[in-house]
C-alpha cells in the first residue's frame, strides 16, 4: 500500500524530470548547431561563390546558392590565376610557403623546446626575468619591426630569401613556443632530471632522450599555433620576399586585391580556400590532440 502510493507519487515527477532533461538536451544541441552555422557562414559564402560562374556573380545575389555549379574557378585558382605576369595560380607559391613554414615551425619549436626545458628544469639566477622579457616580446607589433628588420636582413645577406623569412618567423615565434614548452615542462617532476643526472646523462642527453620523447602533446599545440601564424602571415611575407620567394598569402593577395582590374570573385574565393587547406588539414588532423595538449599543461599558469 505505502509502496504503491510512493510509486504513484513519484512517477509523475520522474517523467517530468526526464522530459525536462530531453528538452534541455535538445535546446543544447540547437544552440551548439546554431553557433556551428554562425562559424560556417563565411565558409559557406566562400564555397558557394567559388562554385559560381563570374556572370552569375555579376548579375545575381552574392550570397545565393549557385544556379550552375562549375569548378572552373578552382582550376583557375590552382593553376591559372594571374599574380602579376605569371599566370600559374597558387601552385608555385604554395611550395614557397611550405619551404618557409616547415623549417620555420621546426626551428621555432626546437628552440622553444630547448628554452622551455631550461626555464622549467634548469633554472638559474635571473631566469625569471629573462622569461618575462621573452614573453613581452610576444606583444611587439610586427609593423614596428618591419623596417629595422629589413636593414638587419640586408646586413645578414638574407634579404629577399627564404632563409631570411624562416629566420624572421623563428625569431618572432620564440616567445610563444617557449611559453608553451615551459608551461608543459614544469609539470614534469624534477626527479626525472635528477635520476638522469645520476645516470651520468648531461644537459643535451637528458633533453634528447627523455624530454623530447615526452613532448608530443605540447609539440602538437606548438606546431598548430606556429603553423597557423607562419602560414597566414602576410606582412613579413610581402616585405621580406622578392620575386620567386613570395609565400602563398602574397599571391592570394595579388589575386584578390588588384585595384583597377576586373575582379573574379569566384577565383578569389577558391584561391582563399586552397590557400587555407594546409592549415585546415592540420586543424582537422591534429585538433583532437590540440585540446589534449592544452589540457596537458600549456594553459595552466
Amino acid at each position: 500500500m505505502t509502496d504503491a502510493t510512493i510509486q504513484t507519487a513519484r512517477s509523475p515527477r520522474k517523467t517530468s524530470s526526464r522530459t525536462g532533461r530531453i528538452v534541455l538536451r535538445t535546446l543544447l544541441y540547437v544552440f551548439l548547431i546554431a553557433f556551428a552555422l554562425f562559424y560556417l557562414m563565411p565558409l559557406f559564402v566562400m564555397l558557394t561563390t567559388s562554385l559560381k560562374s563570374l556572370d552569375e556573380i555579376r548579375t545575381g545575389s552574392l550570397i545565393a546558392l549557385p544556379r550552375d555549379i562549375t569548378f572552373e574557378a578552382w582550376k583557375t585558382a590552382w593553376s591559372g590565376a594571374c599574380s602579376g605576369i605569371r599566370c600559374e595560380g597558387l601552385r608555385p607559391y604554395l611550395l614557397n610557403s611550405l619551404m618557409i613554414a616547415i623549417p620555420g615551425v621546426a626551428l621555432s619549436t626546437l628552440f622553444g623546446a630547448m628554452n622551455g626545458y631550461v626555464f622549467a628544469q634548469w633554472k638559474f639566477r635571473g631566469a625569471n626575468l629573462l622569461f618575462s622579457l621573452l614573453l613581452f616580446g610576444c606583444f611587439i607589433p610586427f609593423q614596428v619591426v618591419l623596417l629595422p628588420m629589413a636593414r638587419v636582413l640586408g646586413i645578414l645577406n638574407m634579404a629577399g630569401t627564404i632563409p631570411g623569412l624562416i629566420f624572421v618567423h623563428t625569431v618572432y615565434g620564440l616567445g610563444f613556443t617557449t611559453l608553451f614548452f615551459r608551461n608543459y615542462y614544469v609539470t614534469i617532476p624534477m626527479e626525472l632530471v635528477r635520476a638522469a643526472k645520476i645516470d651520468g646523462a648531461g644537459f643535451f642527453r637528458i633533453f634528447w632522450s627523455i624530454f623530447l620523447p615526452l613532448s608530443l602533446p605540447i609539440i602538437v599545440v606548438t606546431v598548430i599555433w606556429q603553423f597557423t601564424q607562419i602560414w597566414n602571415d602576410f606582412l613579413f611575407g610581402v616585405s621580406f620576399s622578392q620575386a620567386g620567394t613570395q609565400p602563398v598569402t602574397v599571391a592570394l593577395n595579388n589575386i584578390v586585391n588588384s585595384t583597377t582590374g576586373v575582379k573574379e570573385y569566384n577565383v578569389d574565393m577558391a584561391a582563399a580556400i586552397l590557400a587555407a587547406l594546409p592549415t585546415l588539414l592540420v586543424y582537422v588532423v591534429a585538433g583532437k590532440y590540440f585540446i589534449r595538449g592544452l589540457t596537458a599543461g600549456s594553459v595552466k599558469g
Partner: protein
Amino acid sequence: MAPILDIKNLYKSYGATEILKDINVAIEPGDFLVLVGPSGCGKSTLLNCIAGLEPITGGAVHINGKNMTDVSPKDRDIAMVFQSYALYPTMSVAKNITFGMKVRGVDAATQAAKLAEVAAQLQIEPLLNRRPGQLSGGQRQRVAMGRALVRDPALFLFDEPLSNLDAKLRVEMRTEIKKLHHNLGASMVYVTHDQIEAMTLATKIVVMKGGVIQQIGTPAEIYNTPANLFVADFMGSPAMNLIPASVRRDGAFHRIEIQRDSAEPLVLADQRPLNLPDNVIMGLRPEDIAEAGFRAGAEVQEANCLIDMVEPAGADTYVVSQLGGKQVTARLHAETSARAGQAMNLAFDLAKVSYFAPETGERLN
C-alpha cells in the same frame, strides 16, 4: 675501516632560508641508515646534497674516503631511487635500466649481461619490453631498484621509495629491500616518514626536525630511549602515550601522580634510581600497558581505568582511556573482554617508562 659516507658540518640554504643546520652523520660499510622526520624537515634536501644534486652551503661530504663536495653526481659512485621512481616514461624497462651504462659508454655485451643479472635478481624478466606506464606500482618500484643496482655503487640512496605503494605492497617491498641489503651487503641511506619502515629496515636511524638532527641511534635506542618528546611522539605507531604527571619523592622511589577527570588520581611508583623534577611528562608505549595478568615483571603495576573506546585491529585490540588529560592507548590481546564505558585493570610496565622535562622536552632518564 673508513666510513663509507661522512657528512661534516653540512649547511644548506635556499636563498636566505636555512634548510639544513650543522648536519654530522657517518656510516660504516654495510650500514642501512634511515632518515626520518616530518614532511618538510629537509630529508630529501639532505639526500640531494649527498648525491650532489644540490650544491651545499657549508661543510663537506666524503664518500668512500674521498671528498666529494664539489664532484658532480655521476662521479660520486652512488645510485638513487626516487619516491616517484622517476622512470623514463618513454623508454622500455630494459632501456631504463641500461640507459646509464649506455651514457657511460659501457659496451653492449656487458650491458646485456648486467641487465640479465639484475632482472633475474629482481624477477622482472617478463617485463623488460614494457613501458613504465604499463607496470603496476610494485613493478615500477622494482625497475627503479634495478636501475640503481646495475651501477654497483658504493652507496645507495633511497628517497621514500615505498610511499606511493598501497599498504600491502609496501610491506612486501619492505621485506625485499631488507633482503637485498642483506644479500648485497651494500651501504644505504634511506628516507622515509613511515616509522615502521624506519624501524624494520634501519641499522641506524637519524631523526630530523626542521633541518636539525634530533637523535641518531639504532632502532632499539630510538624506540626505547627517545632523546626528546619529539622523537618519542614521532616514532612508533600508535604513538607513545605522553602523560603529564607530577612527581613526589618517597624515599628511594618516585610516586608518579596522574590526574583523572572522573576518578581519584592514578598513582604509580617508580623504584629505579632516578632524579626527577616535580613535573614530568611520562612516556609509555601502548604495548607496555597490558591487560592485568598478561604482563609480569618487577616494575609492572596495575591500576583500574575507565575504558573510553575499544578498537579491534585484527591481531590486537587497542583500548583508549583518559589519563592526565590525554587519551592513553593500550594494546591488548585480540580476544580481550574490554568494553567501552566499563572499567578494567591495566598493567603499566614502569621499567619501560621514559621521562621528559615538560619545558625543554629533553629526556630525563
